[in-house]
């Protein structure tokens, strides 16, 4: 299906976004001697091995003790270091929420919480590991920056941007290999939405892996004479309200697309903004108040309604509600 479509963005290579983090962290370590890494027995999964190898004196294996890791990182930040913690998204957020809340967010510490295997696409490990609430939890915390990049290149760029950003941040990425469709040399501007495709009939606001699904959906809609605008919301907080409102003023309706619960994530950020400023129809693509399960990433995106076909349906529905 993808091959016959006239896509506005294409790819020749696929890689996992977590490798973008690992490669970005290595470069960050070379650029800045204050960058330190911490990991809770998942060095391979988080792709932190290269950083560990090159900077053994700046890398700390914490063992399976995530709460301890967050506290350690906050302490290192007091000492002027820029700690990047690594574990799965579930154990980066839900498991250590109060440690993050008190020692990192409330205390305003420069800790970068880096979270892999987010969302359904980690696949077979199933619901215990597939966190779908992390963006909501992190977004609710005052002071916290929340970033969910869409491919390898954007994840690498985001990791590098975080070195120069002062303050608590949550960086969310994933396990599966995924199309690399954004440029290698991109400048990552925290808090600035990226209009990837100009349109007029409906706006698709997407984040993370689902930006690619949005790009595919745009081509499918165009074949039917519907022109969708695609906006990549890589930073969910701070939220680029101006970009959202400007697009809605033009298209008049929207679809949000995220690998997350519909409660608390990107869709709710948009809804809040629209309700306060310019009420317009919004359709949510996200998990509908359920846990995930084991399966392949493709099967899961289909079963839970998170793929391009579902974005197309939602776009038509949003347009019909105008």
């Amino acid at each position: 299906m993808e091959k016959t479509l006239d896509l506005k963005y294409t790819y020749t290579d696929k890689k996992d976004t977590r490798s973008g983090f690992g490669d970005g962290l290595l470069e960050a370590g070379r650029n800045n001697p204050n960058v330190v890494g911490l990991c809770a027995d998942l060095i391979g999964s988080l792709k932190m091995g290269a950083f560990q190898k090159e900077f053994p004196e700046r890398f700390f294996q914490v063992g399976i003790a995530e709460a301890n890791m967050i506290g350690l990182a906050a302490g290192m930040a007091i000492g002027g270091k820029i700690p990047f913690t690594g574990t799965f998204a579930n154990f980066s957020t839900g498991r250590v929420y109060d440690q993050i809340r008190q020692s990192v967010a409330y205390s305003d510490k420069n800790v970068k919480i880096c979270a892999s295997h987010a969302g359904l696409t980690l696949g077979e490990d199933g619901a215990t590991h597939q966190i779908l609430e992390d963006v909501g939890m992190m977004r609710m915390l005052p002071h916290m920056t929340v970033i969910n990049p869409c491919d390898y290149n954007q994840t690498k760029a985001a990791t590098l941007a975080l070195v120069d950003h002062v303050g608590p941040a949550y960086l969310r990425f994933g396990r599966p290999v995924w199309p690399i469709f954004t440029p290698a040399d991109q400048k990552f501007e925290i808090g600035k939405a990226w209009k990837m495709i100009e349109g007029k009939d409906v706006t698709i606001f997407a984040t993370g892996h689902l930006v690619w699904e949005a790009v595919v959906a745009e081509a499918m809609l165009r074949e039917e004479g519907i022109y969708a605008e695609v906006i990549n919301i890589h930073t969910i907080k701070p939220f680029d309200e101006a970009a959202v409102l400007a697009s809605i003023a033009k298209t008049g309706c929207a679809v949000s697309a995220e690998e997350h619960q519909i409660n608390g994530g990107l869709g709710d950020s948009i809804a809040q903004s629209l309700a306060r400023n310019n009420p317009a129809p919004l359709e949510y693509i996200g998990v509908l108040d359920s846990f995930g399960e084991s399966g392949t990433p493709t099967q899961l995106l289909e079963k839970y309604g998170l793929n391009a076909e579902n974005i197309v349906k939602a776009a038509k529905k949003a347009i019909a509600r105008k």
Partner: protein
Amino acid sequence: MEKQSIDQLKQICSQVRRDCLRMVHAVQSGHPGAALGLTEYFVALYFNEMTHDSKFKMDGKGEDMFFLSNGHVSALWYSVLARSGYFSTEELETFRKLNSRLQGHPATHEGLPGIRIASGSLGQGLSVAIGVAQAKKIDEDDKLVYVMMGDGEQQEGQIWEAGMYAAHHKVDNLIAAIDYNGQQIDGPTLKVMDLKNLKAKWEAFGWDVIEVKKGNDIESVVNGLAKARGLTGKGKPVMILLYTEMGYGVDFMVGTHKWHGVAPSDAELENALGQLEETLGDY
């Protein structure tokens, strides 16, 4: 279930190991290492030691009850549950596939008989098992509660909160065990995060600790479990330090963290199955 003889237990172990490998291989995902290492313990529990009914009741009243804290050992648990009649062995084919009750990590969500709580996020099972044991005490139910944990898992702080609590509250109808294989994801526990003297730690927390040095020898495990049972009811919780080898039973998998969470290829599976007799019929 009738208690099985040592010979029968050995046969079951061989079949269970085959099941685990075939399950993980079929979906090219899952955790063979600890599953192979813990086979003797699980088989001894379900086919010899515990009083339990495969007509599953969630509350387990009047039965011994088992909890798995290191949920990544799911393939082993599913095989043992199926082989002891909780559900059909054919269902093992659905492991980790879409719409299956046999989730990657154990879940109650789909109603799989034998599972009483989800696990997968490490460090939580001991607390749950203690709660179950205390509920049994309130009901004057004299059966026991068993819980299995990993050794790497001991690095989680919650385990020590639970350990302190169980001794303080004299939860002496509980037999916990640690899969003392010396391995975790990033390497040997000694290198990742040294556990130091686990026996002394648990004793200092007020537990009775026994060591089963040959955790892959079925007779030693059966004897160890009997000894542990003998220590219950004396005012202290009981801990078994179960020395196992990750990947036991397959020569190229044994003793290394490399097989913690990696599936064998077709050729590796064939090689491995060649080392394990099909005793009860593959599913």
